[in-house]
């Protein structure tokens, strides 16, 4: 099984612990990630797209072209990159006029978008290509912890493009956390957005606070997620919230592949848990 990984900016630069945990866990599962040269930012589906959709789509198409030239499907680990590359791929495949416009631009750099590869979020590779049982077979030490899942928005929606799961009643992350030993705990704000894209910071602040409080109330040991932007908002954001509102939230935020890595026998340092702003010490004590 071979894929071209697209790690994007947030993961490779700001949260390399996510890249490390993806690489290590996928190697344990026998998946080959073939690194291709020349990728740029996906580009960012919030601000870059807000500036100019056509240029946004052109840069996304350029990234897809690199995978097409190698004949490999793109695998993304960041919900933002997933959104940009999946949306661009979808629209360019379905709208010949748009494709023509974008290809006119790509001609300047000698590239042509053809539309013959797929963009996949890596969790769908685990569920659909490897299969949940195969993931389970890589688990050496099931981690008996309670997880409250935060899906984030762009893994699931728009569902006509993403085709990952039912956007209102998803199960994919529950299944993946459960095979690594976790018990999934429902919480009130399970499908609330992290709010990161709003310009006025009071909105994301309130949303983040509500999500974290809902998790705190649920009795979960940690929040499990798959998006570095949500991670940013909840891990670092939690420190700011605690200061601003004098509350003690202390909800560790764990990226799925860090959790899978721990269950495969990797150490907390191997998956970079020491780099998190909200420390996971209490949670780690329970499994040591």
């Amino acid at each position: 099984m071979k894929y071209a990984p697209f790690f994007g900016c947030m993961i490779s630069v700001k949260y390399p612990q996510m890249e490390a945990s993806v690489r290590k866990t996928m190697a344990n599962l026998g998946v080959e990630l073939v690194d291709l040269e020349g990728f740029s930012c996906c580009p960012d589906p919030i601000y870059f797209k807000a500036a100019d959709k056509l240029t946004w789509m052109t840069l996304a198409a350029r990234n897809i072209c690199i995978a097409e030239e190698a004949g490999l499907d793109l695998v993304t680990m960041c919900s933002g990159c997933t959104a940009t590359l999946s949306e661009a791929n979808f629209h360019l495949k379905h709208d010949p006029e748009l494709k023509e416009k974008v290809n006119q631009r790509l001609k300047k750099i000698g590239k042509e978008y053809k539309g013959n590869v797929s963009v996949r979020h890596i969790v769908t590779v685990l569920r659909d290509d490897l299969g949940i049982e195969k993931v389970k077979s890589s688990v050496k030490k099931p981690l008996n912890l309670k997880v409250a899942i935060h899906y984030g928005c762009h893994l699931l929606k728009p569902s006509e493009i993403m085709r990952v799961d039912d956007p209102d009643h998803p199960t994919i992350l529950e299944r993946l956390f459960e095979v690594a030993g976790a018990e999934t705990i429902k919480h009130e704000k399970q499908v609330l957005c992290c709010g990161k894209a709003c310009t006025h910071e009071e909105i994301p602040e309130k949303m983040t606070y509500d999500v974290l409080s809902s998790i705190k109330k649920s009795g979960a040991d940690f929040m499990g997620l798959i998006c570095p932007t949500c991670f940013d908002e909840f891990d670092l954001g939690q420190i700011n919230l605690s200061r601003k509102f004098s509350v003690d939230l202390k909800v560790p935020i764990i990226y799925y592949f860090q959790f899978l890595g721990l269950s495969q026998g990797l150490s907390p340092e191997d998956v970079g848990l020491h780099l998190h702003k909200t420390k996971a010490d209490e949670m780690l004590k329970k499994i040591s």
Partner: protein
Amino acid sequence: MKLVNFKFRHKLNTIIGGEAHNFCYQCGACVGDCPAALYSPAFNPRNILLEALLGDEESLVGPDSVIWDCTNCNTCYERCPQAVRPVEVIIALKNISFEKGTNPPGVKSILDSVKESGRTVKTSSLSDRRRKELGLKEISIVPLEELKKLLE
């Protein structure tokens, strides 16, 4: 009574995803599950679509437009029975705002960062060191000359 500004609506029609605003019949399905509407009474996707139908340029793409509080969560895209994809209409409006220079400064800084470094988050000696400590390869180089040609 407000007169419809068709010139603005025609402009909106030219942006990717903007044309669908014509199909909005104001049912309000986009409002109920909108997180921004829940947290900010000023934000209401149905109202934004109504203003788009009226072509209310000043309110939609003026300097203090409420469109920038959209969370981009895509829930309205799911709910809309008319395939208006309100979030995409809002982003098309943001494109017009950017053209007019009424956008928040964050948009320009992300664009500049991609132009200068090919990334939204720039590398630093700290990020290089962290990658090394985690056993990762050096970060790959972005061909900036190619990007420059596409961003001209």
